[in-house]
């Protein structure tokens, strides 16, 4: 394993220490070492925005702690849901009395731990409402949307929910827009190589050279099919063809488009993909209101990429456009000069 690791059992602890040291203006520790919070949280009167998940997806989840984004994060082992206690402590770290919006992804472990954590918080009188991201189209058919995984669309859910909370909206409103965001969002991933969890030390699945896994999950979960590796333009088409009919996105729609690398993909190639994706969307009558291209939600050092589209109306646009500051997503207000 050609990697920067000390004790493979301690990668999460050491990473978290590094995060706290590197971003004192954004990230602060809490009494639970598996919970980090936005340095300014909790903010009086503001709904607390919480998320959590396994490690190995940087910038997700810790990287979205910050200004107009997430207030507290529960941190799990690599590719493992955080504990119920961690979610509960994250709720406490984020709550100012205005309640907590827990915006997380649809995985068995996370569902169970959040459920328990909510029960614990209820006893303390902390109101916690949840939105469960399930934007990953290939993980279940449309009539079983409840089974679909949450993937990179979570970033847009946090952006929208975080912005709404920052505006001072009450909990129900924050939940409404976050749910609306994810309901308008669809994603698909393509994997070209597997990745290696440090504690395991060998790739956790296989993709043959010359093949690719269409619909891969963020932990290497099998997708829809394994096909021959195709040129970037054809992969772009495959992704667009999977995502568009599902919402469905229709001609005339405006969308936020997020193309994220899965870890090892050269950023150059994400722009090659985006170049074609934008053209395909334009050909389908869709206008990209705001693109995000980069490593927003990764799977260690997997070679691969995800495409996420969110259909936006005026409400979602305004929330997406709001200034934000975090390690993983920084967005300055619009300047007059351009």
């Amino acid at each position: 394993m050609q990697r920067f690791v000390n004790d493979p059992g301690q990668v999460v602890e050491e990473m978290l220490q590094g995060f706290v040291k590197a971003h004192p203006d954004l990230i602060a520790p809490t009494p639970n070492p598996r919970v980090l919070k936005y340095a300014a949280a909790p903010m009086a009167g503001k709904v607390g925005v919480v998320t959590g998940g396994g490690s190995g997806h940087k910038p997700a989840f810790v990287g979205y702690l910050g200004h107009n984004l997430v207030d507290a994060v529960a941190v799990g082992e690599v590719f493992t849901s955080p504990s119920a206690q961690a979610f509960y402590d994250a709720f406490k770290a984020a709550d100012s009395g205005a309640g907590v919006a827990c915006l997380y992804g649809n995985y068995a472990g996370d569902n169970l731990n959040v459920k328990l954590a909510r029960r614990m918080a209820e006893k303390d009188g902390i109101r916690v409402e949840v939105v469960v991201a399930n934007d990953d189209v290939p993980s279940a058919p449309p009539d079983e949307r409840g089974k679909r995984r949450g993937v990179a669309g979570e970033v847009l859910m946090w952006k929208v929910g975080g912005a709404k909370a920052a505006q001072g909206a009450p909990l129900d409103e924050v939940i409404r827009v976050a749910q609306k965001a994810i309901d308008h969002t669809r994603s698909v991933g393509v994997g070209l190589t597997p990745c290696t969890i440090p504690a395991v030390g060998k790739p956790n699945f296989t993709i043959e050279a010359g093949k690719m896994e269409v619909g891969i999950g963020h932990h290497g979960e099998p997708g829809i099919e394994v096909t021959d590796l195709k040129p970037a333009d054809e992969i772009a088409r495959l992704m667009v063809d999977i995502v568009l009919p599902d919402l469905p996105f229709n001609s005339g729609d405006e969308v936020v488009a997020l193309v994220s690398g899965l870890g090892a993909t050269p950023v150059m190639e994400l722009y090659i993909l985006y170049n074609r994706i934008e053209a395909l969307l334009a050909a389908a009558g869709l206008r990209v209101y705001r693109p995000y291209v980069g490593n927003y939600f990764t799977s260690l050092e997997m070679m691969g990429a995800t495409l996420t589209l969110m259909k936006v109306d005026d409400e979602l646009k305004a929330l997406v456009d709001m200034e934000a500051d975090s390690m993983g997503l920084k967005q300055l207000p619009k300047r007059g000069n351009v």
Partner: protein
Amino acid sequence: MSLYPGAQGANILRDLVATIQRNAAYLSELDGAVGDGDHGVNMSKGFGMALQRLNADADVSGVLDTLGNTLLGEIGGAMGPLYGTFFLDMAAACRGKADIDAATFGAMLRAGLDGVQDLGGAAAGDKTLLDTLIPAQAQYAAALAEGVPFAEALKRMAMAAEAGRDATLDMVAKIGRASRLGERSRGHVDAGAASCFLILGSMAATLVGGLTG
């Protein structure tokens, strides 16, 4: 009437930890065949931490409370909350009892099972630890109704657990990670079903060995 003395509560956890740690590699191997191969690591990490936190004077309820809280607090994934709830609900069902009698253990088992089912939403036949736990609880309850002694009821519970575990070999997973594999999950014993048998078997042995009266 047979009783398990509350003063020997710590033995339950000590034996559980020894059992789990001895079988950690086996559990991970089972999980690796269809899941992500971390079941043994998760379990032995969580149980080991609980042992470190053990108050040696605690009664049975206190010991199971420490175990449940540790699993809930430190082990994420699906197992932390499921087994955490199992042990916490067992602990609640014997809180305040100086010693454990057959009826109390029956109530504990019922509470643990209910907790896991309520939280996880899985059913018998889904190829999970419930396929061990459900028949084990049923067998124990039946034995009690028949009026068999505590020790004998515990033995029947452990045997039913073992049979339940083995039955998962031919099942197709319907929940959790392995469920995405569909038919490919058949032919492997479920890791959680295996660990659940180890847990129930270990508890039965400790209790039987410690019964007085």
